[in-house]
């Protein structure tokens, strides 16, 4: 009897000393097929390549190797559910579905399963209120910051007065596209401009009537919440009616190379928001070349590097890795659980020094996540497309958005959600 206990104790010690390090699992709910593939592919490639780099260069995060499980959603919510259920058992640490529709489905599930959800620049905006949405994060910027940034940019170029100007919103007729409407309506009241809403139905190839209306009403500015084929179609239609491109501002999901390149020269001057840097002029790319591209380990076709969405995917992976490192530090363990990952995300601080250390100096804004604020500061910049050079240029610095208006809306929407689902607002 005594012998047996001893053996058991020894076994426990041995196992405690050298635990078999399980992989850190980062599922990638990507879409490389369907009408949104043009935008889904670069993001998925960037996301995966960064994790590959971490594995190849640093041996994972804190010595624990990373495992990326890719699951094709086709931007379809039913497949998204299947992907979530099939990957969550593998020990998934964080989900980034890159779809507002799938996000809405995963929000209650992530709360129930305790797996954090990072919806970077998409998803449910009011998730910025961490007191209600404990496991959902949408730093560094959300749609309402985007809507406000559009208006702020208009204020900038009009010397602070856009009274009586007209702004048309061309939006994807879905949860995604409808997100900014409330903010824009509030801002329209505040700054006294006129807002026209022009919905475009999925998948967005048919926009003749919307642009006919724009041609007739001649709004001073057009802004767009589009995705996938809808983007390029809209820019083409704008070019067809000779709408001045510099008055056409897309959100960050309507501002990738794939959206403007099909239109060619005529897309010159088109503007789009962004919350991170563009191009491949960063030291990190040298490492990526050395460890990933030249080693033949690039995800997908490997032809997306340096594009806006590739960079965004990489940025998403980078923030996930930083949060995981954070979690390892906070809980003093190598093998983190999704719950600990959540804590790491909530305590995430990104400064210029961190960005520089990671080989991405000035790539994104500095920000700090807290329980009260899961959304970050919402610093947004405006990019402009140079068709000749074939590149995006950052034309403004990272600007603050109108948190006065947005803060109220977030409080209102999140408290409605809390009431509906009987959640007590609290910071644990």
């Amino acid at each position, binding site marked *: 009897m005594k012998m047996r206990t001893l053996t058991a104790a020894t076994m426990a010690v041995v196992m405690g000393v050298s635990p078999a390090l399980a992989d850190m699992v980062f599922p990638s709910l990507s879409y*490389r097929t369907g009408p949104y593939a043009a935008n889904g592919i670069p993001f998925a490639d960037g996301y995966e390549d960064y994790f590959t780099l971490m594995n190849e260069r640093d041996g994972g995060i804190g010595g624990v190797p990373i495992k990326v499980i890719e699951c094709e959603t086709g931007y379809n919510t039913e497949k998204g559910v299947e992907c979530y259920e099939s990957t969550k058992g593998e020990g998934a640490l964080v989900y980034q579905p890159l779809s507002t529709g799938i996000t809405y489905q995963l929000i*209650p599930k992530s709360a*129930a399963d305790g797996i954090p959800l990072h919806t970077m620049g998409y998803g449910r905006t009011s998730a910025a209120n961490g007191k209600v949405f404990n496991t959902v994060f949408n730093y560094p910027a959300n749609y309402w910051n985007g809507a406000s940034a559009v208006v702020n940019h208009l204020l900038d170029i009009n010397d602070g007065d856009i009274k009586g100007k007209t702004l048309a919103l061309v939006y994807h007729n*879905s949860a995604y596209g409808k997100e900014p409407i409330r903010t824009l309506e509030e801002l329209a009241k505040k700054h006294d401009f006129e807002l026209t809403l022009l919905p475009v139905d999925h998948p967005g190839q048919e926009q003749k009537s919307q642009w006919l209306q724009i041609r007739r009403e001649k709004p001073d500015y057009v802004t767009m919440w589009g995705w996938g084929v809808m983007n390029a179609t809209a820019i083409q239609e704008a070019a067809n009616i000779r709408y001045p491109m510099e008055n056409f501002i897309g959100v960050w999901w309507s501002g990738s190379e794939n959206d403007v390149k099909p239109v060619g020269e005529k897309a010159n001057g088109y503007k789009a928001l962004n919350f991170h840097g563009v191009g491949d002029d960063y030291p990190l790319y040298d490492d990526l070349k050395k460890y990933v591209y030249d080693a033949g380990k690039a995800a997908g076709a490997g032809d997306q590097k340096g594009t806006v969405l590739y960079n965004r995917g990489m940025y998403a992976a980078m923030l996930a890795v930083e949060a995981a490192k954070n979690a390892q530090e906070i809980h003093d363990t190598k093998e983190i659980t999704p719950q600990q990952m959540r804590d790491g995300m909530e305590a995430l601080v990104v400064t210029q020094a961190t960005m520089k250390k990671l080989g991405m100096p000035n790539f994104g804004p500095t920000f700090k996540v807290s329980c009260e604020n899961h959304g970050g500061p919402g610093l947004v910049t405006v990019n402009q497309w140079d068709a000749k050079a074939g590149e995006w240029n950052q034309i403004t610095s990272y600007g603050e958005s109108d948190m006065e208006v947005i803060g109220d809306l977030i409080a209102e929407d999140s408290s409605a959600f809390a009431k*509906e689902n009987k959640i007590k607002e609290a910071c644990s």
Partner: protein
Amino acid sequence: MLYREVGDFKTTYQADGQTFPIAFDRYRYYAVMLFAFAIVPFLLNDYWVKAIALPFLIYSIAAIGLNILIGYCGQVSLGTGGFMAVGAYSCYKFMTGFDIYIPGGEEWVRYALPPLNIFFSVILGGVMTALVGILFGLPSLRIKGFYLAVATLAAQFFLVWVFNKWEWSFNYSASGQITAPERFLFGHAITGPNTEPWATYLFCLVFVTILAIVARNLTRGHLGRSWMSIRDMDIAAEIIGVNPLKAKLTAFGISSFYIGIAGALLFSVYLGAVEVGEVFGIQKSFLVLFMVIIGGLGSIFGSFAGAAFMVLLPVLLKNVLVGQLGWATDIAAHLEFVIVGALIVIFLILEPHGLAQLWRIIKEKLRLWPFPH
């Protein structure tokens, strides 16, 4: 040898007219029911229920519904997605408290029913859809074939547009999405994130079982015969005294009831949050139509077989190609389209009457086995 009527004597009319006249079939049916009700609930986990069991059960209901309309009554409909949306949105309204606004004094006053139990919300979702289905079935009295298909196609687009536009239908939520709040039945969560796999499974299974038995018996009875006579030749049917108005509208109503229940379950139990354009678009109409055609027109078993084929095959292919063979997800996804598409074509060439007909042929052969002469 085992599979034959011989020796299985029936002494009552009831026994003679039962669904499964062959003893072997009957026992198989009891075994399947026992397995589905008593054993499967213990085997299910989150993945199996969300990826396989729920979609299969829910699409089976939709396929039975559409089969009643197309397979039994011969009225082509492309509005399935729209009708499912009606079911989903009515279920949502009833489960969150159906409200109306009546002008009273200065402001509109809101009168609301208390939130209903999820079971009744789903049923009422079906009832509302039946009403809408009858409404959109009215043109079927004048037009048929392709023209009716186009009229129902209009219903599809109109209904999706309504639920996108009409803010009351999604309780004025900012995103235009409907999200199922947590609802309980006998103390167990049926909707919302904290459901047990077996609870949602049994909830849907009960609906499927009842609806399938009802459908089977309806189609064998007076109503079913009048539908089939309309399908086979409407003028002849009218001459022998079948009322086309009644036959066609009941077919539309009952079919829509089934489809509405499927939509309500799809939204509340399976997905939890729904965006009308994405979930209930024209693709859904085609998906259910394919199920019916592949499964076999005019067969309840065919509806199950078709739903299983269309729901399970992609999941199976994905698991084999990506999970087992480790292929890139995009290649696997594209190949999935190719394989499923090719199989549909091959099936329809080899057996134009669907999987149900295959099953019938097998049964015929089984009867003679092992002495085919």
